[in-house]
């Protein structure tokens, strides 16, 4: 269980998070929805300790991670997998080496066993046999999938997704969404996804939380969310629907 208590964060004169409170349930997909530039990525990075809050706590299974030292934080991070916006694959390594990287760094497995894990994870994201390719040879969607394979390599309990479908064509975006749903169902892990795409949110979420103006303005199941009378949510939903109509 992830509990975010009253998180404040500013960058220079810009107040990004102004008292975020959120509980993220175990074994389900929580989507943090919000317009671009509302600090969704910043919030996500707080959960894995990449950014420290100016004030507030991030509690993972009873432990506040904000005051932890580097070695202790690293122990905590081994329980996480994270998919970055553009995959963030190491471009000096092959796909296989990328997926193998966390396993090599944190286990003492033999090369053969690592190769088997790499093959299994790539298969899981539907990209068998591309171990020798370089990231520069991959399309945007493939990069995300390899990124997901790498995030899953250590069998994490919690997987974080930073805008997993942004910049992809609708068909590829749909493929990634389906992959997230299937993987979550299969593994039963806690998934936290941030997106500005309402469609994606409704398709993959068990719970949707909306971030606006530096605070969570609404939280609930997709059905509750759709029926919300909160004016910010309504405005967002109507604007997105309008966008769809014109598309």
């Amino acid at each position, binding site marked *: 269980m992830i509990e975010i208590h009253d998180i404040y964060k500013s960058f220079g004169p810009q107040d990004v998070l102004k008292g975020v409170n959120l509980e993220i349930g175990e074994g389900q997909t929580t989507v943090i929805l919000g317009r671009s530039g509302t600090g969704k990525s910043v919030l996500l990075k707080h959960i894995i300790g990449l950014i420290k809050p100016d004030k507030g706590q991030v509690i993972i299974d009873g432990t506040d991670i904000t005051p932890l030292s580097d070695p202790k934080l690293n122990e905590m991070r081994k329980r*996480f997998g*994270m998919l*970055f916006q553009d995959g963030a694959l190491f471009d000096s390594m092959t796909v296989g080496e990328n997926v193998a*990287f966390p396993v090599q760094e*944190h286990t003492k497995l033999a090369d053969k066993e690592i190769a088997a894990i790499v093959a299994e994870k790539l298969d899981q994201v539907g990209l068998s046999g591309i171990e020798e390719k370089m990231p520069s040879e991959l399309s945007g969607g493939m990069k995300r999938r390899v990124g997901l394979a790498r995030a899953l390599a250590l069998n994490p309990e919690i997987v974080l997704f930073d805008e997993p479908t942004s910049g992809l064509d609708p068909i590829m975006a749909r493929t990634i969404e389906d992959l997230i749903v299937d993987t979550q169902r299969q593994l039963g892990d806690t998934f936290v996804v941030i997106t500005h795409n309402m469609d994606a949110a409704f398709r993959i979420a068990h719970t949707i939380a909306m971030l606006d103006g530096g605070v969570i303005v609404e939280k609930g199941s997709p059905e509750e969310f759709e029926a919300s009378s909160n004016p910010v949510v309504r405005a967002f939903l109507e604007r997105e629907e309008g966008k769809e109509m014109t598309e």
Partner: protein
Amino acid sequence: MWQLLNRLGEGVVRELKEMGGMFLLLVDTVRWAFYPPFRLDLLFQQMEKIGVKSALVVILTGAFTGMVMALQTYYALTKFGAETMVGVTVALSMTRELGPVLTSIMVTGRAGSAMAAEIGTMRVTEQIDALYAMAVNPVRYLIVPRVLGSILVLPILTVIANFVGILGGYFIGVIVLRIDPGAFVANMEKHVELGDIYNGLIKAAVFGLILSLIGCYKGFYATKGAVGVGKATTQSVVLAAISILMADYLLTAVMF
């Protein structure tokens, strides 16, 4: 006037911040360098990248510097009938000064800039964040091997530059300008001391630290996409070259 003062102040604060940042990165690098397990694989990889791949450039630089030194000093020394001192002059300037300085500046251009560009690209494409997220400390994984590698490799490259430079001096002095080879070598042996060579190599190690720390720092804190990485790379080369020359003066004043 007020505006000018304001700008000057801002500049000073910015530079001080950067120096502080670099010092903190150095402290962090030293801390992680002594934190087991030691990653010899990464260290050797970097030594190959910085050292072996710079060898040709360093050989060419050393050879031509030694040759031109012989040519220039011959011109001056013949006026005093002291042309047999050409060898000593070349050897002393190479080992004490030109070997370490020119080698470091060439390596800054080749490897220091690459460090800034590579780490900077990793920063702006979130690969550094990905390392943190995978519980791998990027200072330990990226910066320690580069800094240690440079400190170890620069003295070796300097030895090569010194050797090739003296050889170049010998070629021009003895073969082209027909100085007596016996006197050329004997004078060199008599006047060049081991300390001249040692101190030159200590300088090279310090320059290795400077160029790698600056390259890594500039890359590690690069922002604003491709333009930012370009800027970081240029800045790293200019700053490292100037710092090397300044450190050279200080070290020379202290050591010799």
